[in-house]
């Protein structure tokens, strides 16, 4: 049984009045009353929420004064109202807890103000009367004015005054609008007014609407709000952002209903401007609370856009707007509460949170919710919103939304990076009354994620086994690393064993790399001691994302998996010591790419038509990936373009590659192979899927696949070229990955049988040798304490196993027979024989030998040359790091001898798509229409010749002794310092002279300029807010005039 909603208001008020009866000194009792009242109000609202959610009952009108509306004020309780009330009251309850100390110090009056504030917010949501709405607004204004004063920050007073100034302007406009609206319609009831429409009093309605809109703190009429966000008590700021903004949005929605469809564009316009501007302005912020304030403004803007688009959202309106609103509210409240723990106000001061992993989890949950990442409601909502926008062809709006969201993710994740990587002098103490609200927000976030997953009508991400497995590691954080590692390896292997039969050969290859490949790399993780907090949930989320990607058959599943693997890998990369800026650029590029994919899917979905269950034809909000093939002109090439760029971001195609070197190089020893050897393949898988389903596309006469061919070739060349100039071993390998991915992209874009086969060989080979090399180099770096190659040298005798791995790796990679790299080259030559385009091959021809250069550099400067004095006592890398390398050596040799084991099945599979040019696998010789290749024979011949000569040499020199290190003559002197005789630094100087012009950091500069531009824009925008309350009033009036004029123009 539920309790009349009026009791919520009555309780709030009654409790507020009751506190006045108490003695000034009995603050403890007053506080108990406050908490009790808020808890009761929350319980009543929650009861309603359960009722509506469980029964799907219709909204219920509540009369007052025993008189029906419109003659008396009426309230309405429905699903949305109940949800909002629950949110508001819980936010109030937890805000009271969070502010407990302050409230107790300030006494019962402060508690009364808080109670009235919460009551008024509830009233704002419930009321159906326009003037009543005004009254509640004013109550909120005044209560805000009071609660702002609870802050310890003296500046809060001036912020509150600025707020009062603007609210005076607002209330004047609102009152004038209301009274003329009343005059025109003869009623104050919102529904009554809506029935009559705003046509008769458009001007008055404009005043009402703009006044209510101003309560949403739209850009630029929001300087006061930012000052409040910055200076208010965080407990109140949470309430202000979570509850007040939500209630105001709901009120705006109600008022907008009066105006009808013709006013929707106003909401959209205000919303999108606020969203983009809010995010841009947040970019240069360094104060945490102000940044959150800007983010709140932006988020309100986004929700406003959803409100403005309700005409096309249809039945999804509540799902979308509610999802956005609740994620924002919960996340923002949680973050503000968290800021209460942080002593300093700089973003970097949040590093103190690291002392409490639970708080870090809460922080990251908040950020993920704000950024709309899975599995939180914002993700589902964004998916629907973008799809519906695309369906209506509102692509410009869609573009701006995604742009704003990307900027937002940029500054949020930058902040998270600070928290994880910077140092803080402050300590954190966790009184339970402050921890409980944060935990509540944390739990609410996940619960909402679950709820939205259920409501979405798609697979609930929080019920998907791989993700659950990953998240389970969150609960295992107390366990030692070796135990978790064993579990991780076991999980991956078991998953493979359970599912491998379900896949076609192509996917199976990826599956093997994603699961077993990952498991092998995890062997290296045994070297870590302690608990390694944060590593396993992140890593397993990444692997979960990857296996889900393979499972996904529809666009939603695919995209969700894509986002999961992105997030997981971001956290992994962030773990590196110096990886903060690189992880940031990784996540920004990845999310940018993901948004393009999202846009591509949305546009595709708009033209893929499916049969709804009723038999009616409707646009699909999600579709089978395979039906990309059915897309028609003119949509198809655009979809192709968006998806291709999205996937190429992941494979670090040139121009989109600048995130990769830092991200891969700075990652931990066992993480580098995961993100390089394994993760990059996800991008290739995407490209495979794309090309398999869509084939060739052309746009304005440009063959897009051909374009990809060029991009692949240029990437291969420049990636390799950049690699040879690196002094840092892991960066070298990272650039080499760029080049290798270029090869694979090139192979795919050849669009012939052998091209694809070659790309697949790269998938396998690159996994093996790049994982191996990263482990080997990582082990060396671990021992020597540096990654600069010129500081190493002569390690061959000290770390022979690592050397062997590197040697085998570079032979394989350079394509020299007899190891497996040659197979790739052979297929490549056969493939290009069939290709239509010849020029890009030139670049590939060039990049091959260049690869040789950096490989030689790698092995020479680390393992050969002169051993340094400080390294004389080094030991071989730990067994756990060497063991996987040896496994890889075995695999490489195995693959080199029997490539057919895997490839012939794939070859047959590819024939389904591109039948021409299949290879002939009879006997030991692999034959194409142009040539042949017998790996076994090559291996035997080379081995025989080699062993013959070697044996002879061994025999004749059996007495040879190893000479001392300095037993050489160098410029007529006997050297004594290894540093002077280890030729390693600036290894390929002549190449730089001759070809250096190709590797000028143009791309870095380009993206740097873009970033600077955004920052500058944000910085310029900030100057609007000069702190003068009067100027803020001008902003408000200008805002009104601009909207007015643009509305006239429309």
């Amino acid at each position, binding site marked *: 049984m539920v309790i009349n909603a009026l009791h919520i208001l009555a309780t709030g008020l009654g409790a507020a009045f009751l506190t006045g009866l108490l003695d000034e000194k009995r603050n403890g009792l007053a506080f108990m009353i406050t908490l009790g009242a808020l808890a009761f109000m929350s319980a009543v609202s929650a009861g309603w929420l359960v009722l509506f959610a469980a029964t799907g009952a219709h909204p219920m009108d509540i009369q007052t004064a025993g008189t029906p509306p419109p003659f008396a004020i009426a309230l309405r309780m429905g699903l949305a109202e109940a949800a909002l009330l629950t949110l508001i009251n819980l936010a109030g309850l937890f805000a009271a807890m969070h502010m407990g100390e302050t409230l107790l110090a300030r006494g019962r009056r402060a508690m009364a103000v808080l109670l009235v504030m919460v009551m008024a917010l509830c009233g704002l949501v419930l009321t159906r009367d326009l003037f009543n709405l005004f009254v509640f607004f004013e109550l909120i204004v005044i209560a805000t004015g009071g609660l702002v004063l609870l802050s310890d920050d003296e500046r809060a007073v001036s912020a509150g005054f600025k707020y009062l100034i603007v609210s005076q302007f607002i209330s004047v406009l609102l009152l004038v609008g209301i009274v003329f609206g009343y005059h025109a319609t003869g009623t104050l009831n919102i529904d009554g007014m809506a029935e009559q429409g705003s046509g008769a009093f458009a001007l008055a309605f404009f005043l009402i609407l703009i006044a209510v809109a101003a309560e949403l703190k739209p850009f630029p009429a929001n300087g006061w709000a930012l000052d409040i966000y910055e200076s208010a008590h965080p407990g109140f700021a949470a309430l202000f952002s979570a509850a007040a903004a939500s209630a105001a949005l709901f009120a705006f929605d109600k008022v907008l209903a009066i105006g009808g469809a013709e006013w929707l564009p106003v909401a959209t316009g205000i919303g999108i401007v606020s969203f983009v501007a809010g995010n841009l302005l947040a970019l240069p912020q360094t104060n945490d609370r102000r940044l959150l304030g800007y983010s709140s403004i932006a988020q309100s803007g986004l929700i406003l856009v959803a409100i403005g688009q309700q005409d096309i959202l249809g039945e999804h309106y509540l799902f979308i707007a509610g999802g956005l609103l609740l994620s924002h509210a919960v996340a923002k409240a949680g973050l503000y509460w968290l800021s209460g723990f942080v002593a300093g106000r700089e973003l970097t001061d949040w590093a103190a949170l690291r002392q409490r992993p639970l708080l870090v989890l809460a922080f990251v949950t908040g950020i993920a919710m704000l950024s709309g990442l899975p599995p939180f409601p914002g993700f589902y909502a964004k998916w629907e919103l973008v799809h519906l926008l695309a369906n209506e062809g509102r692509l410009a709006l869609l573009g701006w939304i995604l742009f704003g969201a990307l900027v937002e993710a940029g500054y949020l994740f930058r902040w998270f990076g600070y928290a994880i990587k910077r140092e803080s002098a402050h300590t954190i103490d966790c009184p339970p009354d402050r921890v409980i609200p944060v935990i509540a927000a944390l739990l609410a976030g996940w619960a909402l994620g679950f709820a939205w997953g259920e409501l979405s009508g798609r697979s609930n991400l929080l019920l998907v086994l791989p993700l659950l497995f990953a998240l389970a590691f969150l609960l295992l954080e107390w366990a030692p690393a070796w135990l978790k590692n064993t579990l991780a390896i076991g999980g991956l292997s078991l998953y493979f064993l359970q599912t491998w039969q379900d896949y076609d050969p192509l996917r199976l290859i990826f599956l093997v790399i994603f699961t077993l490949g990952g498991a092998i790399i995890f062997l290296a993780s045994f070297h870590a001691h302690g608990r390694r907090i944060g590593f396993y949930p992140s890593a397993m989320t990444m692997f979960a994302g990857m296996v889900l990607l393979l499972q996904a058959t529809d666009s939603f599943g695919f995209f969700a998996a894509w986002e999961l693997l992105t997030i997981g890998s971001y956290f992994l990369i962030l773990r590196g010591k110096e990886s903060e800026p690189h992880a940031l650029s990784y996540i920004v590029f990845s999310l940018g790419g993901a948004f393009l994919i999202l846009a591509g899917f949305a546009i595709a979905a708009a033209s893929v038509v499916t049969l709804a269950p009723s038999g009616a034809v409707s646009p699909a909000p999600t579709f089978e990936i395979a039906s990309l093939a059915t897309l028609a002109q003119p949509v198809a090439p655009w979809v192709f373009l968006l998806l291709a760029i999205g996937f190429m971001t992941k494979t670090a195609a040139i121009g989109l590659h600048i995130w990769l070197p830092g991200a891969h190089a700075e990652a931990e020893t066992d993480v580098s192979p995961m993100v390089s050897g394994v993760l990059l393949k996800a991008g290739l898988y995407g490209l495979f899927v794309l090309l398999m389903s869509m084939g060739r596309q052309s746009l304005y006469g440009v063959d897009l696949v051909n374009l990809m061919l060029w991009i692949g070739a240029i990437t291969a060349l420049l990636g390799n070229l950049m690699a040879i100039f690196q002094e840092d071993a892991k960066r070298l390998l990272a650039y080499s990955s760029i080049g290798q991915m270029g090869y694979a992209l090139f192979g795919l874009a050849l669009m012939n049988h052998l091209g694809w086969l070659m790309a697949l060989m790269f998938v396998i080979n690159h996994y093996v040798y790049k994982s191996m090399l990263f482990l080997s180099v990582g082990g060396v770096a671990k021992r020597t304490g540096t990654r600069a190659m010129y500081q190493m040298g002569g390690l061959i005798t000290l770390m022979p196993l690592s050397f062997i791995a590197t040697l085998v790796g570079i032979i394989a990679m350079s394509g020299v027979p007899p190891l497996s790299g040659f197979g790739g080259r052979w297929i490549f030559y056969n493939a*290009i024989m069939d290709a239509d385009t010849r020029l890009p091959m030139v670049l590939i021809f060039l990049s*091959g030998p260049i690869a*040789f*250069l950096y490989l*030689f550099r790698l092995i020479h400067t680390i393992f050969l040359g002169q051993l340094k004095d400080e390294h004389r006592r080094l030991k071989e890398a730990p067994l756990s790091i060497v063991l996987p390398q040896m496994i890889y050596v075995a695999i490489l040799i195995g693959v080199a001898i029997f490539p057919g084991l895997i490839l012939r099945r794939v070859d047959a599979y590819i024939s389904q798509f591109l039948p021409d040019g299949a290879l002939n696998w009879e006997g030991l010789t692999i034959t194409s229409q142009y040539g042949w*290749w017998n790996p076994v024979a090559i291996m035997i011949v080379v081995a025989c010749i080699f062993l013959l*000569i*070697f044996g002879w040499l061994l025999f004749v020199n059996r007495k040879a002794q190893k000479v001392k290190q300095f037993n050489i003559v160098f410029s007529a002197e006997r050297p004594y310092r290894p540093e002077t*005789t280890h*030729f390693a630094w600036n290894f390929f100087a002549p190449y730089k002279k001759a070809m250096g012009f190709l590797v000028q950091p143009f791309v870095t500069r380009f993206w740097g300029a873009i970033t600077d531009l955004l920052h500058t824009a944000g910085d310029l925008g900030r100057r609007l807010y000069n702190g003068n309350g009067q100027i803020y009033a001008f902003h408000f009036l200008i805002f009104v005039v601009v909207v007015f004029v643009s509305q006239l123009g429309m």
Partner: protein
Amino acid sequence: MDFDWMKIPYAFLTVFIVVNYGFLMGALIQKIGARAGRRHGIPIWQYYLDVIKNYGLRTSITHGVMFYLGPVFRLSGGVGLLLFMPVIYGSYMFSNFSFAGDLILALYFVFFGTLGMALGAGESGHPHAAIGVTRGLQQVSMAELPFAMAVFSVALQYQTLSITEIVAAQQGGMMNWTLFTNPIAVAAAMLAFLGSMMRPPFDVFIAPQEIPIGPPTEYHSSYLALMQTNRAIFPVAKIVIYMNLFFGGAGSWPELFVKVFFLYLFSAFVGVCFPRFRVEQSIRFFLVWAVPLGVLSIMVV
């Protein structure tokens, strides 16, 4: 084409012939070069003496495993390259192990020795070894480019990657040689050829050897002998590729001797006429002159 035990003695025979030919031709070319410089030059059997002497010497030092392996890789590379090609067109006896792979195998196996040598020299710990190796690698990376394009052009022209088939297509008169049917590709390839023959003007990378402290000082006695043997085999093997691809191949040993000699002479001829380039100059040279030719050859074929 398949394996056959008889191929093993045949392979030894091929190697034997090529080694002898290589020694003689190398000395001859060197003598021609000396004469062009108004010097007397070495006797024609000089290489035999050197090699016999070096094989006879015993060393008692080594710098380490890779140092050891350097010459082994080197010689394996040379011999392997030779044996992976059908040396004499139409001859089963001298088709060697070409069943193991086609043109691409030969192209890539060229690097096998280079790699080993680079590694071996590196372990000597001598900085000049590394300097020489890096210079060589840098230059070769660009010099190989026009060659690769020429090969691609030829493969496209004949629509095959089989050396035998390419040679077959050039039979029936000189005018059928690729030299005449695809002159641009040949021009590009011949420029690349200059770059890979370790002769002026593209020989700066062996400069560290000339000031006698590079690999040859570190590699002595039997190590040096292996390398000298390779210096007889490897150029011939390499020229055989060129000959097969561009100059109609060879149907018999004498034909092979003549063609290889003239091709070798070509590089020597250029070598005595031009001074040495620095590495970056060679790179630019190939980039400016040879690469466009290669591109052109791909485009027009």
